């Protein structure tokens, strides 16, 4: 087992290298660079750019050098925590992202938790009470959740949150705490605002998970070993948890791999609508303005999360399912 984990971690290294090459290629693809679009923007506004200064900046950041060397610079810097410089914000990338990253992680983490807490009981209920009124009702709600676009839900919720609870519209905290250092009051304000994005981002995920859990559990409930458990005289609920539910968890665990990046990148539109201080809007802005180090670091971060998520789900699957652990490739 230890061997396997070490091997999997070792395999991550070439994977990440390949991804970094891809990311670099993608952010290099559009013609020009940040300075060109900056100059164009200035000119459009009728101002004159100081070409000398821009040339100096170009040289300083190695934009005159060939692409492979810039790539090596970038990757080498990332290895010791230097993610480059954001031209847009005129700050090192790590400073720009810093606070936003933690807020993003907070929003995502709470969203995942809420998704699970809501989806599990509903999924189990729907499967064990198949074709009952409860199942139909919850299925209907779930399909609504899947079908309504996030941004519409965001607008609706914002409106009602303001009318009913007096929560200020937009942002993850009250206006006065923006760009303030962390304090108790700020933390409370964040918690007060948190539920809106969590509900919005989580709805579709919850609905999807309910449907999948229901389908998987229904499959397992037909199996013979469930009848065996009943024939043992087991309490039906305990039998359900120990046998079919456990079996149907495999899909859920392999989901972890994709759930992390999905929630962080999938929340962009919601984040823009709600003007949240998360990484989503920043990534889109950075891609638009060719702020290459910022965009590149973001993409790398997402890729890293994907790779980690897959690693975690693979290891968890091997722990949970002896067939994977002991049989290896040959499965019946």
């Amino acid at each position: 087992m230890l061997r396997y984990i070490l091997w999997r971690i070792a395999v991550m290294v070439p994977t990440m290298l390949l991804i970094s090459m891809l990311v670099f290629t993608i952010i290099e693809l559009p013609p020009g660079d940040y300075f060109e679009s900056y100059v164009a923007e200035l000119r459009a506004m009728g101002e004159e750019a100081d070409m000398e200064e821009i040339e100096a900046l170009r040289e300083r950041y190695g934009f005159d050098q060939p692409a492979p060397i810039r790539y090596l610079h970038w990757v080498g810097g990332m290895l010791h925590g230097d993610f480059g410089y954001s031209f847009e914000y005129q700050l090192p990338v790590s400073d720009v992202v810093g606070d936003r990253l933690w807020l993003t992680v907070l929003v995502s983490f709470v969203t995942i938790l809420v998704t699970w807490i809501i989806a599990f009981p509903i999924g189990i209920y729907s499967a064990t009470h198949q074709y009952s009124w409860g199942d139909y009702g919850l299925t209907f709600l779930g399909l609504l959740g899947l079908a309504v676009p996030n941004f519409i839900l965001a607008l609706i919720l914002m409106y009602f949150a303001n009318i009913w609870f007096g929560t200020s519209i937009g942002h993850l905290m009250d206006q006065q705490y923006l760009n303030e250092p962390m304090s108790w009051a700020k933390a409370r304000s964040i918690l007060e605002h948190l539920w809106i994005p969590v509900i919005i981002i989580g709805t579709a995920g919850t609905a999807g998970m309910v449907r999948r859990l229901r389908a998987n559990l229904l499959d397992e409930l037909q199996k013979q070993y469930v009848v065996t458990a009943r024939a043992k005289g087991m309490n039906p609920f305990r039998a359900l948890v120990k046998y079919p539910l456990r079996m149907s968890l495999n899909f859920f665990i392999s989901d972890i791999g994709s759930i992390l990046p999905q929630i962080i990148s999938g929340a962009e539109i919601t984040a823009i609508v709600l003007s949240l201080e998360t990484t989503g809007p920043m990534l889109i802005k950075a891609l638009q303005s060719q702020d290459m180090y910022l965009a590149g670091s973001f993409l790398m971060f997402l890729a890293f999360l994907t790779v980690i998520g897959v690693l975690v789900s693979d290891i968890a699957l091997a722990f949970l399912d002896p067939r994977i652990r002991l049989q290896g490739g040959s499965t019946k």
Partner: protein
Amino acid sequence: MISGADLLRIEDLSISFAMLGGQIDAVKKANLRVLPGRVTALVGESGSGKSVISQSIMRILPKVASASGRILFNDPLTGTETDILRLSQDGPDIRAIRGRRIGKIFQEPMTSLSPLHTIGDQVSEVLTIHEDMSRDERYERTIEMLRMVGFAKPERAFRMYPFELSGGMRQRAMIALALICRPALLIADEPTTALDVTIQAQILRLLKDLQQEFNMAMLLITHDLGVVANVADEVVVIYHGEVMEAGPVEDIFRRPGHPYLKGLMAAVPHFDMKPGERLKALREVPVNASHLLGVSEERQKEPGPDILLSVRDVTKSYKIRKSGFFRRPDEAPVRAVDGVSFDIRRGECLGLVGESGCGKTTVSKMLMRAVTPDSGSIVFHDRNGPVDVLEAEGDQLQKLRGKIQMVFQDPVSSLSPRMTVQNILSEPLEIHKRGTPKSRLETVSALMEVIGLNRRYLNRYPHSFSGGQRQRIGIARALALGPELLICDEPVSALDVSVQAQILNLLKDLQKDLGLTYLFISHNLAVVDYMADRIAVMCAGRIVELAPREILMRAPVHPYTKSLLAAVPFPDLDRPLDFSTLKTANASDMRNWSAPFRQDDDGHGLATADLGEGHLVLARSNADVRELRP
């Protein structure tokens, strides 16, 4: 009937399933009883309601089913009588009976245990539910039980997962699970149907031994009259949800009263059939092959070489990747087929018998060019000269495909559910570009007549036919191209006894009328005995014995053939299985064979010895022929 003496008495039990647009009555006012300490067999074909009755006894019916009547369980431990149907669904009262007073084992040992939990966990869990015991006591009791059901190393088995065990061992674990609380009644729902015949005999012996040792009653649900004759004390015959006949096993077998039971008994092939004797199918299919006769007349005018197909020394190994992620990869190739040679003569039926995993299906796939052997040769002796099956390409291969056709085991999955019968039957003709659309339709109609189905059914889909009818369609599909060799891979294994006889008779008639040659693969010796002219016995990838039918059945030489024959349960009270000779050892393990048939350490390999009259047996190359004779 003396009431009070019965352990279980079922009175006027009716079970119906709520379906879309009405309900289906699966059981209609059934009455039966189980005496304490005796084995009662509930016999019936699939869909007769026998499994549903067994489920209702433990109240584990599916939700859509509803039961009425009375199921009286008289617990000898307390002396009280409970009506199981009056207990609340999944309430504490019924749960105290399930697993503790009534145990149950199922047909499919692979799926009846959870793959994620160890054997020990699943068996000892029954004790956790029902008995107030410490962890150590539970462990002791589980180990003891596992040893009783035949695990040589119960401590090891305790920690194993079901998928690490063979089918027979899994069923033993299941028996341990059902019996660990010493129930008064064991319900065994087709406990041996999914097992090989030698394993079946072992499991039957184990069940019988434990039943006597624990002095418990057993309700054995089966469709196999051979099993009934060997194990049961009382028999209940059920047909379409109604009890046809019930009584002691002697009465039932010696004086069957009901026509259904008589018909069932006449439909089972047995070893004492005279040459040319025909099975009496419950519903016979009239064969009308006159439309296809043109082909066979042409063949008779110009008979080809005597040997139609010769297989020489074919070998196929599979690499098993045992490594997975966690172990060092050790690639030990497994020889699925190991130096197999045989001839199929024109117009004969060669039976190929063996237990699951012996390689018989791999051989059939090689003949079809679906699997390429590692070495060896297969030659098809066509009228126009021999064709190397393994080398044929292009046009030659296409022609060859028309000459060799296959009938599959499962009539449900071998026909596409999205094609009408007409599409299914004419597709081979289209692929081989035979005839015009009009002439194809004529051929297809003729084929339907051959298998005794009305041509009006041509536009129907397979799901609207019964299992036997579907298998007939499968046979018609195989016949469409006018093949010379038909490979039948377990064609009746998935069918009920009464339908089985029908299909076997159909195949026999077709062979006679159309001059076909069969390779008939089966695990059922009685079926092969009925069909085949010569029989080859396969074990662990080798043909261990090949002889004309009468010789193989009368005087088998090889120890594996003998144990195979000894393990077949006869539906005849005068020929009980000799349980004492059935060792728990694995009959297909070479180490259990007597010396002349084993590979020895001196490097004397195994070779085929000719005993005369076409009787070949695999033995040590330096063994004397006289030594081999019993």
